[in-house]
């Protein structure tokens, strides 16, 4: 049985905007990631469609330098604009495998058997590499936080690989334990992007951030339908965890509604391009967390 205090502590960590920037800056200190960049180990990562130990999965020197720069830029951006998230990354991630997958899509992965470590594949590819890196390391750090919380206080839910459920965020079929983690991860990403969107460095970054906020909110708009379905075995989720998940869903929907107080659907459709929309979402989330 997971303790309520443990789950609440996770939720506090994920409310990146709740801590005043000045208070979080100290912990973020020198604006860098503290994890080890692992380009060469023989680690064979489970459940990915390529061999991370193969020589062909290693980046060449040019790519290593580029990825190092991308991660530096990501850390500096987080230190300035999302210091609480940087603090989470630095407390949860000790090692990051950086690999090249010839036929694999870019992405990141964590695994219950590798707590403190994650895999980033093809980080050199995206146009907005630093922004993608920020989301990836934050995403995987949340998984580490959840793994550690479960190790200390018990699993959040049944760990069986079947049945699977459709994630309202990715559309992928996930086992219950992955879906439960996803709820926390997407809430953390929602608060992350709501923070980053407040002072975008460019129009492209502003558009990217808004898109990510919208994506996070969309999943929460439909999460309760999944949880309420008779097909969802809610009894296999720790009740305290389920309550917190429902709370995150409510918070996201309230923030959406507060940021889009529109009388017609035409206005709703255009609200997310408004100058104040990201700030309104951030304010709504912060208000709900108090």
């Amino acid at each position, binding site marked *: 049985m997971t303790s309520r205090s443990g789950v609440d502590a996770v939720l506090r960590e994920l409310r990146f905007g709740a801590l005043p920037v000045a208070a979080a800056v100290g912990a973020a200190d020198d604006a860098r990631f503290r994890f080890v960049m692992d380009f060469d180990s023989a680690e064979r990562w489970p459940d990915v469609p390529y061999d991370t130990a193969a020589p062909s999965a290693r980046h060449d020197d040019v790519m290593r330098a580029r990825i190092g720069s991308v991660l530096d830029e990501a850390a500096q951006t987080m230190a300035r604009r999302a210091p609480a998230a940087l603090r989470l990354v630095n407390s949860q991630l000790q090692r990051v495998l950086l690999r090249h997958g010839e036929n694999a899509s870019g992405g990141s992965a964590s695994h219950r058997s590798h707590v403190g470590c994650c895999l980033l594949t093809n980080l050199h590819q995206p146009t907005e590499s630093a922004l993608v890196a920020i989301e990836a390391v934050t995403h995987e750090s949340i998984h580490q936080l959840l793994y550690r919380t479960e190790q200390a206080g018990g699993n959040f839910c049944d760990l069986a690989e079947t*049945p*699977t*459920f*459709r994630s*309202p965020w990715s*559309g*992928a*079929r996930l086992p219950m334990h992955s879906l439960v983690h996803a709820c926390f991860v997407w809430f953390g990403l929602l608060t992350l992007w709501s923070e980053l969107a407040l002072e975008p460095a460019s129009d492209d970054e502003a*558009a990217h951030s*808004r*898109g990510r906020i*919208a*994506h996070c*909110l*969309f*999943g929460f*708009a*439909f999460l309760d*339908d999944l949880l*309420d*379905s*008779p*097909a969802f075995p809610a009894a296999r989720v720790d009740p305290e965890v389920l309550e917190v998940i429902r709370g995150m869903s409510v918070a996201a*929907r309230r923030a*959406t*509604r507060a940021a*889009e107080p*529109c*009388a*017609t*659907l*035409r206005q*709703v*459709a*255009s*609200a*997310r*391009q408004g100058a104040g929309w990201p700030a309104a979402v951030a304010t709504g989330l912060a208000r709900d967390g108090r």
Partner: protein
Amino acid sequence: MIVPRRSDDFEPDLVLLLYGDPHDAVTRALVSGRSQLGWPLLAVSTQQLIDGIELEDAWTVAGRRVEPQRTALINRLPLEDRLEPGDATAAGTMARQALWSRLREELGRFRYSSSLPTATSIMGCYGSLLDQWEDLPRLVPGLLVPDHSAPSLPRALHGTVFSVNRWTPYSLGKPLDEAPAAALPAAARLDYVLPEGSLVHLAQVGDTMFFPNPPPTMSASQQQAMVNAARALAAVSPIRILEHAFFLGKGAPILYSSFPVPVLSGAHALYPELVKQGLRNDIKKWGGRRPA
């Protein structure tokens, strides 16, 4: 959780039809037979919905006040535009996400709604064939679906294996040896063991249903098995208007797909009557159920 309870039948002040395609069989049946439904009908197109309705506690439609708690809503909004990465611009995707989210919230306030938007359809559906084959047997214990395998859920298959795009519920796909794996992206590919027999369809509105193409070989027990499955679904599902396709051989029927648009049965002479009788009954009974 929606559970049945003893209650008076719901008698709405109004039936509000939201429609995208005027040729949709449900829309046609309602618009042409409004006097037979027994309640006033107000039909609102997607365009009118977007521009002409004020969404307050009560909706204002063409100057008329619509109380969600006194209204039955028939959701026939466009089905086809899934929110998947595609050609849409980022701003366009965000606009649709905003609309879908708000509509889910708004339509959920009505005492009766024939379906609610889902993450895969604004009309509301059970998702891809893979989603249906994974989820529906948990909604309807005992329901049979084809043995299947997907890149994300690999399983060994034995028999005549077909490969299909999981988002095409009215296609059986092709035999695996005619459809090389590379032909479909991993996110769309679904392999399955083709069941014996041929497809039989069942049109359903709530607890009311009919077979538009019953084969002469269909036994009474097979017919009853399909009716029982549809009734079991109607007991728990928020999607009230459906067309099911079952494989019918010599044994128990195997569900291939459930779809909210009556692609096959919509043209049948009985379909308008199904809509009228089915909706009239379902609005009264299902609308009388309250959240526990």
